[in-house]
């Protein structure tokens, strides 16, 4: 980890969030505490873990029901409007006004962010270029954008005010591989002098850019560590090799074994990659292999128990 943990800009202390619904009160987040400094922090976790709720709280879109968020020592709740001036936020379900052109939409968001009109024009062109959208037809409306282009437009609007804190909820969702690489490069480049927090399900993306990893599970912070620390529990618990197809099928249904990869390898055989909670391979012949982020994530889930 670089200096991210040594300098904390954003601090969360005991954050909780509950939603009352017709079926009772549901806790989306419980006692989440961590600090965020310059660099890229990746937020991972299964669906429903509370990632989006956490990002919404950090974007000051919703209020936590417990705990405190502070930026450089000042409580966000005391002056949320001033805090929002410091952030760029890409929501998970980003939408635009369909009848506006991308440039007009960015001009609108620029106005909301207090960017003077004369600066907004140049800035709009700049962020469109950064996000690879400068080739769009000038008269084309947002309704005609593909899902990936809309995602890029969402990223562009988040960058408009050159914020010191970027909150990106699944920025690579729906993007083609080329656009994903571009976004990851951009995130890496932007992280100099900024705090970037993004959530993702694509752990390859996380491995590419993470300075720090946060894992949420059932609303609780399950892990907070540097990439090495995140992968560490999986060392010696990941095995790979070529097995019979029948053995691979047995592995898939075996208790306490997670098959994270399986590809055909000749007639009736396949190459598997498995994660186990213990140190012994589930089949003789499987060799220990170095874990990647995905293995580490699966291993943490296995070690955490059946939930």
């Amino acid at each position, binding site marked *: 980890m670089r200096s991210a943990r040594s*300098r904390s*800009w954003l601090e969360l202390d005991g954050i909780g*969030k509950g*939603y009352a*619904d017709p079926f009772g009160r*549901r806790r*989306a987040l419980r006692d989440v505490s961590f600090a965020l400094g*310059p660099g890229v922090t990746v937020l991972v976790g299964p669906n429903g873990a*509370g990632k*989006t*709720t956490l990002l*919404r709280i950090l*974007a*000051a*879109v*919703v*209020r936590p029901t417990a705990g405190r968020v502070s930026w*450089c020592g*000042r409580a966000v709740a005391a002056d*949320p*409007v*001033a805090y*929002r*001036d*410091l*952030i760029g*936020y890409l*929501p*998970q*379900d*980003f*939408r*635009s*006004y369909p*009848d*506006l052109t991308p440039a*007009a*939409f960015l*001009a*609108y*968001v620029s*106005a*909301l*962010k*207090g*960017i*003077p009109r004369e*600066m907004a024009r140049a*800035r709009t062109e*700049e962020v469109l270029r950064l996000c690879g959208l400068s080739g769009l037809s000038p008269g084309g409306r947002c309704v005609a954008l593909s899902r990936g282009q809309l995602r890029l437009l*969402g990223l562009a*609007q988040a960058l408009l*005010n*050159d*914020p*010191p*804190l970027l909150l990106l909820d699944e920025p690579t969702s729906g993007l083609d591989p080329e656009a994903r690489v571009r976004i990851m490069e951009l995130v890496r480049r932007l992280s100099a*002098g*900024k*705090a970037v927090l993004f959530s993702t399900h694509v752990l390859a993306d996380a491995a590419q850019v993470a300075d720090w990893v946060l894992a949420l599970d059932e609303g609780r912070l399950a892990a907070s560590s540097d990439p090495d620390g995140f992968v560490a529990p999986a060392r010696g618990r990941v095995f790979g090799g070529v097995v019979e197809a029948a053995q691979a099928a047995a592995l898939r249904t075996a208790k306490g074994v997670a098959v994270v990869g399986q590809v055909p390898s000749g007639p009736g055989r396949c190459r598997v990659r498995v994660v186990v909670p213990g140190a012994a391979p589930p089949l003789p012949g499987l060799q220990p292999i170095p874990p990647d982020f995905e293995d580490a994530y699966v291993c943490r889930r296995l070690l955490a128990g059946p939930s």
Partner: protein
Amino acid sequence: MPKTGHPCGGRERHPAPWPAMREELGLEGRDFDAVAAVLAALPSCEPPPGAAETTVEWLASVPRPGAFRRRLLAAGPRPGGLWWTLAVLRSQTRVFSFGFWAAAALVSLIATLVTLYLRLAALSGRIDLTAFGLALPFGIISPVIAALGVSYALRSLENGPWEVELSCPITPAGMAMGRFVIVLAYVTGLSLVAALVMGGRTQPLAGTEILTAVVTTWLAPVLFLGAVSLYASLRFSPLTGTVVSLGLWAALLTAGHYRPGVGLVADPGQAWLSVMPAAMLLATVALLLAASRAAGQAAERAGRAAA
């Protein structure tokens, strides 16, 4: 910054003018204010031992704005103040498409022409205007335009960039009220034009009479229906806002038809400080206050939907 009573006389103490220093340091507003407070609190020209080091260390711990943000901090209005409020109000006009302005104007024009025709026909004795009750077409249509306009302005709650808008340095209530004011101002403008056209063509009206007609016949119902639409749109959904406000309007018109004095369409000849408009204004104030709470609830609802 007090200059009296200081051993350095103020000028020597801070040779760089504050705006220049602000730009040179390139700090966010509140961070700069903190540095300024430290400098202002120094008891002498020479900082006490350790003070400079402490300040430099603190400066290293706060985010330094990027190149664009530095220019923005130097040039742009920051959240708060009248200028900012006006800029926010102007930005909200972008939410309305040309189609909205054109459709509202066209409907108003048609309603004005029909009303004008009825009044002229009544003056020439060809029809009995009392057969139409007091709800002449323009008086019926204006509140409908207001109610639909407010629901339309809040359409981003359902399928638009509401989350992005909420993450900008504006309060949800401020944004909702801004849109409400824009719709009301536009409908009032249309009503004033219509009043002048109808007043001039049917009977010579004095300025105060035109004002009375606008206030009692159109403005009060427009305010009332607009406020109902605003509250219901924020509290439930824009579609609900439309249905509730139009349903209420239909009920009031019907009530007024059968029991004169109960409905909301007043006789332009009535004193404009009659009980009915006063009651409507009170109701409107109450609804506006409620709407400021509902804006926050709308944000929570969006969060709950995602969770």
